[in-house]
């Protein structure tokens, strides 16, 4: 069976995740509160989630039904959170 190496090695994916996590933290710690923080931080969550799903969970090679369900879940939840946040804006 041909090997299924992911295009990126786990190391490069890991580095991206660490950097984006740091950005999320600093944005929250020092960045301005409000709409842009939320949208920015959740966009990063989308990126990180997709990386983990596609590379670590190897959904890149998986049948589309599984890839769609996990990525679909990620997008729906994040969009739901953003939607709820905007609705709750004072």
């Amino acid at each position: 069976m041909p090997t299924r190496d992911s295009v990126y090695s786990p190391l490069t994916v890991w580095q991206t995740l660490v950097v984006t996590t740091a950005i999320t933290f600093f944005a929250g710690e020092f960045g301005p509160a409000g709409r842009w923080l939320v949208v920015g931080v959740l966009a990063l969550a989308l990126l990180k989630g997709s990386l983990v799903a596609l590379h670590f969970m190897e959904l890149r090679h998986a049948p589309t039904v599984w890839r769609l369900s996990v990525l679909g879940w990620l997008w729906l939840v994040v969009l739901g959170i953003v939607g709820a946040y905007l609705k709750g804006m004072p």
Partner: protein
Amino acid sequence: MSSSRTSSSSLVLSTPRVLQGDIAVWIFLLAELLAFGVFFLAYAFARARNPGLFDAEQAGLDRQSGLINTLLLVSSSALVAQAVAVVRRAGADASQRAAAALLGAIACGLGFIVVKGHEYAAHFAAGMELSSSTFSMFYLGLTGFHFFHVVLGLVVLVVLWRQTAAGVYRPGDANGLESGAAYWHMVDLVWLVLFPLVYVMH
């Protein structure tokens, strides 16, 4: 199991459409994701109803330990992915190198437990409990639900570590390892949404 198609246009053998691990685990994963997803949305909409309370009580959280925990889980997840890749390439003493990676993943997982336990101890000492406020109910509920998933995941990883060290897994015959890995990545994926939602957003 799945035929690999060699299309004339691409020289590279197109990789077969195969799911990582056992479908039974994936069905369980999706059910868990659904439960977490609904809880996240419930949190988001409850927050929308009184943003002030949530922001005020969120300030009481220790965002740094949240950061450390995210880094720990992400690293642990990467190490498990590394272990799966090593077993699949099956070089010299692959089992030993994969087992080492799994051990690292377990260590990071334990780190998460320690940091989280420390965080909880502080909150419980301050008298926070499930029914003290809507925020505390969501905070303890969500992170607690996730916390016990990490504990379960560590049990799975220890079993996988022993099996890998014993050389049970080989390329094309690592269903247990891949299934456990998929579960652990799910636990990490859920935390990647939970961290910004609970700790950072305000």
